[in-house]
């Protein structure tokens, strides 16, 4: 199918964008940064086109659903939201240094979607429970949340890299100089986590409304539900610790990494547990 062909090209485009971001950081020349941004943008546009084609194809096949319904499609959409959110952020902050940490995550997710065994890239018909308008809003909000948490995680990693380079003052290659200041990373981590928290809240609520219509109960302690609640609690804890207890810097960076672990488990690890949300059955 043409859409999967485009999507496998997008994987390489994101890899190229990552390499260009890396060139910029190592060589310290904004020229590479501009190329990296353009490349990422081309990747995002190509990916959007592929998603639209896939959507249309599903209608042509008589199934007619948004490309958000199986594991493959969710991975692709996850990568899309990460790049989308990142480019928005780059545009707003006028700072390209974050790209070298965020874009590789998107690339890895795309690569995983294409090469991991057992992931079918076919367009599958929807079982009756999934035939709902809530599917789109639920998946959209959840993945916007996941993407914001991913960005926060990348910022947390950057924070530690920056901290390490600050401890070692003798040598400061362009790479470390170009990283944003610790205080700015701290602020950005907080903002990304807040954004993710709001989207996750909406994702849980739209999911509950849907469950209320489909399964007869807005909450049934399904492992995926429970893990999304755990993730929500962890980020709630983090926001309180910062706003009221004044946690900053290292502690916040640790929390973004820990929180991202919970996000990953909610998304992937839960498949190891019996669940109504299981992608693999």
């Amino acid at each position, binding site marked *: 199918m043409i859409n999967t062909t485009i999507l496998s090209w997008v994987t390489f485009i994101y890899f190229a964008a990552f390499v260009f971001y890396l060139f910029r950081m190592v060589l310290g020349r904004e020229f590479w940064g501009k190329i990296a941004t353009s490349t990422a943008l081309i990747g995002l546009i190509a990916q959007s086109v592929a998603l639209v084609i896939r959507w249309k194809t599903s209608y042509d096949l008589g199934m007619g659903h948004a490309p958000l319904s199986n594991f493959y499609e969710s991975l692709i959409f996850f990568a899309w939201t990460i790049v989308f959110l990142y480019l928005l952020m780059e545009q707003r902050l006028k700072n390209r240094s974050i790209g070298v940490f965020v874009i590789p995550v998107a690339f890895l997710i795309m690569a995983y979607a294409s090469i991991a065994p057992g992931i079918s890239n076919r367009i599958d018909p929807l079982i*009756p429970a999934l035939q709902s308008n809530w599917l789109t809003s639920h998946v959209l909000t959840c993945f916007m949340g996941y993407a914001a948490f991913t960005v926060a995680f990348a910022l947390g990693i950057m924070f530690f890299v920056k901290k390490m380079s600050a401890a070692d003052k003798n040598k400061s290659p362009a790479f470390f100089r170009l990283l944003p200041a610790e205080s700015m990373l701290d602020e950005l981590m907080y903002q990304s986590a807040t954004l993710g928290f709001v989207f996750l809240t909406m994702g849980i609520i739209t999911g509950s409304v849907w469950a209320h219509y489909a399964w007869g109960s807005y909450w049934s302690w399904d492992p995926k539900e429970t893990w999304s609640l755990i993730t929500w609690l962890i980020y709630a804890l983090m926001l309180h610790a910062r706003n009221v207890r004044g946690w900053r810097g290292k502690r916040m960076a640790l929390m973004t990494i820990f929180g991202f672990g919970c996000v990953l488990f909610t998304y992937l690890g839960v498949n190891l547990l019996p669940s109504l949300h299981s992608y693999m059955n």
Partner: protein
Amino acid sequence: MSKNKSGLWSFFSSVQLAIVLLSLIAFFALIGTIVPQREAAVELAGRISPGLFSFLQKMQLFDLYHSIWFFLLLGLLSVNLLICSLDRFPLAWRRFRSQAEPQKADAVKDLPAENTFQSALNIQKVADAAANLLKKRYHNVAQANEENSVFLSAQKGRFSFFGVYIVHLSILVLIAGAIIGSVFGTEGHINITEGETAGSFNLRSNNQSLPLPFSVRCDKFIVELYENGAPKNFQSDLTFIKDDKVVHSGKLRVNHPIEVEGFRFYQSSYGVSPEGKATLTLLRDGGRRDVINVAKGYAFDLPGKEGTFQVLRVEENLMKMGPAIKVSVRSNKGEVTFWVFQQLDKIKEANPGITEQIPMFNPSLFRPYTFTLLGLEEKYYTGLQVTRDPGTLVVGAAAVLLILGLLLMLFSYPRQVWVKIDRQQDKALISVGGRSHRNKAGLERELQHLLAEIKDRLENSK
């Protein structure tokens, strides 16, 4: 109140407690995803010692989310949330009430150079232009004129002080709604075969039967399949009857529940009913051939009075070999039981000699008869989820409040701004400053924007 806070009050108003409780709830939730819960726990019973199992059961480890421990944590969190909010609300209220006044213009003292600029216009004109702009962008604009300077003040986003309290309130309402649901709500399941009527359902918690205040008849059940065999759509035509009167009737589809007298019905599953009929032929060696319809439990005497024939089981797909029925024939020589397959020819083709090796698969086991299964008349049952949860509306209200509160916090922040205009000979020096408790970086950007806009206006009015 602030003077004599008791120890209990300060314990419950601490955010450390909130952090500990959030961690504990997260931890409990995690345990519940690892230890099998409710129905799934039965399987564990066979693998651990009965003593340990019953101990863990007493500790409510197998129904963690409805256990006393979990309710205790939620109760503590609720009290913590309430006391925390009550403790801090007066400060938020004071901040909400505090006006940006021109006289309190500390914020425009010692400003960095980028927050000031000079204009050739006279001070009054500058003040008018700035006041107009502030009125457009902000609320509560006030002005104070002094001999050589004009002070302007304004504010915005005051209501977002309440965002966090709305969020906290929503969590309390949510917990209340969940408790209402778990105390007054019920949840269960019924299977109704096409054409039949049910007047009760099985509770999920203990599998006991609970009567409904009306009866439900399944008039028809339809399932559509995709080419790959996955269900595309399934639905039941239901009629709800009370005192011999139809109170409601309609199609029940997945994702589209029907509510009758506070009970919500969901189309959750379906299956082939064990009450299906089978069509059978009897061939007597060199004699007559009979076609009969049978069902499970059905018995009759064979035409030549050789014995009594009975249907023991009806299977739609036995061991992936297609439809089959298990029958027994009792005669004065004893009892023989065997399976009669519909697709016997196919089975024989795939496994030559099977009827000789496994006599139970031989439909001619009772001489002089040979039985053939012509087909099963499939009858579906519809699986309905039944719930009654009076807390749902409360939880829904909580969800709306929660999103409202979060949006108020995310998209708005309280800030006060001041513009000071000083006379410098025949020119005016404009300084812009502000104050925000929550978003200093955002305020800085906004002030630069405001500054540029004032500059722009002054240049255009020249």
